[in-house]
């Protein structure tokens, strides 16, 4: 890994303390976010706040299984986000397909299509696990290890080829995109 300059280290340190999260609620895992966000677990005390648009968000939180239709939107969303950006794969379905491993429409591993910085195992993970993952991600950002967005840029061809292999075409044909 490349040595970071002092300014980059400072920037990373600040970045890790103010993370805006775009939660792409694809599956049942989204159910665990309301308690994480609200008074009981209150993730804002870690400086993490939900954000409505991809262009202003730092984390893309993928909660649950992804099928081919949603994966196209996820790739769109991910590519819209400004650098630096981080991805958290939530639940066992993003790791290996979970209980949908043999489905004709759900993908089996997320990091084959977009780089993932942190995975949270479980079906589904508790809010404590989400906060643990956020803390771990913040630690990684501070150390400069959360470099998924750099890997995506460097290995763009590999990711693109995988996306096309599974999806056929990444371009979305619907009334919102044409």
């Amino acid at each position, binding site marked *: 890994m490349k040595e970071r300059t002092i300014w980059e280290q400072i920037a990373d340190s600040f970045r890790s303390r103010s993370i805006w999260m775009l939660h792409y609620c694809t599956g049942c895992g989204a159910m665990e976010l309301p308690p994480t966000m609200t008074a009981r677990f209150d993730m804002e005390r870690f400086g993490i706040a939900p954000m409505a648009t991809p262009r202003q968000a730092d984390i893309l939180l993928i909660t649950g299984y992804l099928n*081919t239709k949603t994966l196209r939107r996820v790739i769109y969303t991910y590519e819209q986000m400004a650098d630096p950006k981080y991805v958290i794969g939530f639940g066992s379905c993003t*790791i290996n397909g979970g209980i949908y*491993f*043999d*489905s*004709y429409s759900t993908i*089996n591993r997320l990091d084959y299509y977009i780089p993932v910085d942190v995975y949270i195992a479980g079906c589904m993970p508790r809010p404590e696990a989400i906060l643990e993952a956020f803390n771990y991600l913040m630690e990684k950002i501070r150390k400069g290890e959360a470099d998924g967005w750099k890997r995506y840029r460097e290995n763009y061809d590999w990711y693109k080829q995988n996306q096309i292999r599974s999806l056929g075409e990444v371009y979305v044909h619907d009334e919102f995109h044409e």
Partner: protein
Amino acid sequence: MTNSMSNLVKILESFNPFVEEIDEKEIKITVSPDKVVAVLETLKANGYSHLSLMTCVDWIDDNQLELVYILFSWEDGGKFLVSTRIDRSNPKFVTVKELWPVARFYEREIHEFFGVEFEGNDDMKPLFLELWDERPPLRKDFDPRDYSRKKFPDREYEKDVIKEAKIFRGEING
């Protein structure tokens, strides 16, 4: 079978149906494909005006597809399951969108997942799947696991047998 339902079954006897009582308030009638629309019209005129569901079952051994219309009555809370079997190799049926406009979407869905053509319903755009390139996925001869293996690569795990044995013996915590 409630009184009003048995009266209705009597009215429907002219269509030569096979009547099956599933439940006190649930009756399944199986008719031949050419009589389905007439049966549905009769039921709709007699209070069964709500199309709860329209679905399809694949009977691969008989080489048939079964179409099921579930009608609900808001008057006595009863349900009629109108079912018919069509040929599986060239599945074609008539649309019922004139009776229930919502049937358009059920027919689109059945077209997408079972490959049934509905004559009279022109809008057969896929509802759920995008860029589907295989046979309709809910047919019994479609193997989803095979498709998934071909299209979506699995994560490869390295199996550490020694560690597993140690966990099994209780030497280390798993």
